[in-house]
């Protein structure tokens, strides 16, 4: 496996804020890596270091074995602009050709437009595009130079379901054609749809770096909401990993496996009513995950002291 990018003990501070804290990471050729974390976790900072836009406060970064802040190093890197950034008066064809001319062997405009569903829009000025169309154009620009490594920052935020699926399909086809992709998101769904390997970051640290299914097991929690007079007994049920009292007097239980938890609840004979089950949001899952990580760190500190 060729290493395309490597971060070695990278820390980046902005004044008093530590955006990345001693992060080491390798990105090898051939996979789609999902970078998952809540807003402000350090995902965008990590990408901007790989793009050469910023330099680390300490530690080293390598892109294709070189320094990402040197323009020639970035010849095989593909990035997306924010979709609001596209120059409003340029036509879609012009934007694609403009960016393509930075690379040795750009994808022909017609071919790229076909791939990302832009063929009918080539003559439009980007200012006249809808949000979804602009987003497709932004993502397409990342692939115009036949990059070896593509960095996609929140590629489908704000898109409807159809637009999102179409874009995911296009990214997957590009990956099959040989591009390694790093995609950031705070949507678990997006990471599930695209990534094979998942890196979970929070507060500038890497919490988890593992295969998709292993990470899903850790962050995918179900929430059971119910009203019961015997709250303590319900919290103590096997399979319940966390709980939270709600303002209306009901109780929320967090469980990894909702089916098992419901069976246990019924079998226990605890009286309850108004049961609803839903998936925990990523934010809620992260709270549990980070709490676990912090507990683990505290644990290891204690052991060291002992």
């Amino acid at each position, binding site marked *: 496996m060729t290493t395309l990018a490597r971060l070695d003990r990278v820390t980046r501070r902005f004044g008093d804020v530590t955006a990345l804290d001693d992060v080491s990471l390798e990105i090898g050729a051939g996979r789609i890596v999902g970078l998952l974390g809540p807003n402000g976790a350090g995902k965008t900072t990590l990408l*901007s270091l790989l*793009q050469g836009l910023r330099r680390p406060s300490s530690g080293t970064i390598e892109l294709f074995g070189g320094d990402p802040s040197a*323009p020639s190093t*970035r010849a095989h890197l593909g990035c997306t602009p924010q979709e609001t950034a596209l120059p409003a008066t340029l036509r879609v064809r012009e934007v694609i050709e403009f960016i393509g001319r930075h690379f040795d062997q750009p994808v022909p405009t017609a071919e790229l437009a076909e791939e990302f569903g832009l063929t009918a829009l080539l003559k439009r000025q980007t200012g006249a595009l809808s949000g979804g169309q602009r987003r497709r154009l932004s993502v397409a620009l990342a692939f115009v130079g036949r990059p070896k490594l593509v960095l996609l920052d929140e590629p489908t935020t704000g898109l409807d379901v159809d637009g999102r699926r179409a874009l995911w399909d296009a990214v997957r086809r590009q990956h099959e054609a040989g591009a390694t992709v790093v995609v950031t998101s705070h949507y678990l769904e997006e990471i599930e749809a695209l990534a094979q390997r998942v890196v979970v970051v929070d507060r500038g640290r890497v919490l988890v770096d593992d295969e998709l299914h292993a990470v899903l097991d850790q962050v995918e929690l179900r929430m059971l909401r119910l009203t019961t007079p015997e709250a303590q007994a319900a919290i103590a049920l096997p399979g319940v990993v966390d709980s939270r009292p709600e303002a209306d007097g009901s109780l929320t239980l967090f469980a990894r496996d909702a089916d098992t938890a419901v069976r246990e609840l019924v079998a226990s004979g605890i009286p309850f009513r108004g049961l609803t089950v839903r998936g925990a949001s990523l934010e809620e899952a992260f709270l549990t995950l980070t709490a676990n990580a912090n507990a683990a760190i505290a644990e290891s500190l204690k052991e060291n002291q002992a």
Partner: protein
Amino acid sequence: MTTFRLAGVHAKYSMIETFRVPIAVIGSLVFPALGLLFFVVPQRVVADDPAFATQAVISMSVFAVMANSLFSFGISIAEDREKPWDPYLRTLPVPGMARVLAYIFSIGLMGVIAIIPVIVIGGLLTAAEASISGILFGLVMLAVSALPFMLIGICVGYSMPSKAAIAVVQVVMFGFAFAGGLFLPPLLFAPWLDTLSKFFPSRQARELVIWAVQGGDLEPWAWLGILAWIAMTLVLALVLFRRDEGRRYR
């Protein structure tokens, strides 16, 4: 080589963007031509005298190039810094020097376009006259004397937001134009104003181009002044550029 090719590419698309909003172009092109038409052509004392008319045409050409340099650099840089398109372009394999050259190409071309109507009106409606070699040498000196204005534009662009940049550029532009004798010839200045005027890059640029076109003596303060302005504004521009790199990333 790649740097020059990419500078050409960036200049081309930046020109396309500029010309898609033609009124912005017309503003900087028409004003110097109108100035010549209204203030010089009707005054036959000036317009019928070959030496004075030529100087008036030169003054308006200096004004056209100065206005274009200050406006284009000051406002485009301030605006580009506010747009998220700029950090995207910096992820592409393009050296920073190519982007600076692209600004110079596209703004330089606009400057050339801006003086064409001035030269045409001057040639047809006044007694202004110059040899071909004089005109060519004049254009070269015009390009050299545009440097301090471009650098001042860069300083403005990197030191303030675009709305402030518009206001500052306008004040600087008209201040330099009057003080430099581009609107009223320095011949009409009071002695104290004439002395003060010699410290302005606009006055120095005017003398430099007049010397190139009409010949005669070039006073040392004109070329020394231009060099001093280039040195000072270059240092300031570099300082502001570096400071901006640090500040933008917070």
